[in-house]
């Protein structure tokens, strides 16, 4: 993965496959603590306790179409390379929460990438999933809830490219005010 937004996209796709209807993506960037934290929480099927150990094993997957599952292991590796860590909390039938943190100033920390585009892509593709996006920096916070957008659009599909571009722009502009660091 070239940047952290692509990791977020990847992990969020896991939630979708896990039949989530609520998905929360939270990014906290703190210059004061020199820390970047990403949390992805869903209300999907959850991971059975005896499998939690194996999800970060690259040769473990629940899929039958291929033999490996690299999403979580790659993210864990990138976090550890940047003085960070990855934690997964999951309860079967309740949901899963992936928390990953990085040292913000670490040379090996990947850039954030196009977070706005990722959030819009997810919201537009899975309109039935209520996606909450939170971004917090030392300057303040920004929140967006996909079902609010859905209400405003009033039946017009979010996956219309005109809407997607406008939404990405809206998020980007708001994140700019929060002084995000790539």
């Amino acid at each position, binding site marked *: *993965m070239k940047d952290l*937004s*692509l990791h977020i*996209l*990847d992990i969020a*796709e896991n939630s*979708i*496959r896990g039949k989530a209807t609520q998905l929360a993506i939270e990014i906290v960037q703190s210059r004061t603590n020199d820390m970047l934290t990403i949390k992805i929480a869903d209300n999907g099927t959850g991971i059975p306790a005896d499998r939690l150990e194996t999800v970060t094993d690259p040769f473990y997957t629940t*899929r039958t*179409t*291929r033999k490996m*599952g*690299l*999403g979580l292991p*790659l993210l864990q590796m990138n976090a550890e390379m940047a003085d960070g860590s990855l934690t997964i909390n999951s309860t079967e039938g309740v949901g899963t929460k992936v928390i990953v943190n990085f040292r913000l100033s670490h040379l090996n920390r990947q850039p954030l990438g*196009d977070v706005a*585009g*990722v959030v819009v*892509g*997810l919201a*537009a*593709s899975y309109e039935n999933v209520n996606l909450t996006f939170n971004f917090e920096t030392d300057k303040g916070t920004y929140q967006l809830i996909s079902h*609010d*957008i859905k209400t*405003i*659009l*009033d*039946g*017009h*599909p979010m*996956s*219309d*490219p*005109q*809407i*997607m*571009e*406008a*939404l990405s*722009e*809206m998020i980007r*502009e*708001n994140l700019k005010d929060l002084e995000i660091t790539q």
Partner: protein
Amino acid sequence: MTKIRTLDDLRNLRTNLRQGMDMRENADNPDSVVQIKVAMATCGIASGAKKTMDFFVTELRKRQITALVTQTGCMGYCYAEPTIEVTIPGKTPVVFGNVTENVADEIIEKYIKKGELVDGIIPQTFNPIDK
């Protein structure tokens, strides 16, 4: 176009779209417009599927083609990522593999606009993703 910063701006855009002839007749019936699904699992993302999706979003708007662009999970063609599925109304969905920006451009110009087939079709014994 003025910059969109708030949900109110978005509401205005929505009103403008409604007034324009755009997708009005089609909004209630997504089957009547071209639909593009980009496979977006670890394999796809790592191969640049996000870039491909961005390309479609930007270019379809620029070229004023009415279409919907969404992402989906792994279609099982990890060797040919990025893969996309294009559904033209009334036709069987077609899956294309190795869709870089150049190929995406060709798909828009030839397949979506004119209905001509282009290289890179993944032959089908196939089950279209039905999400």
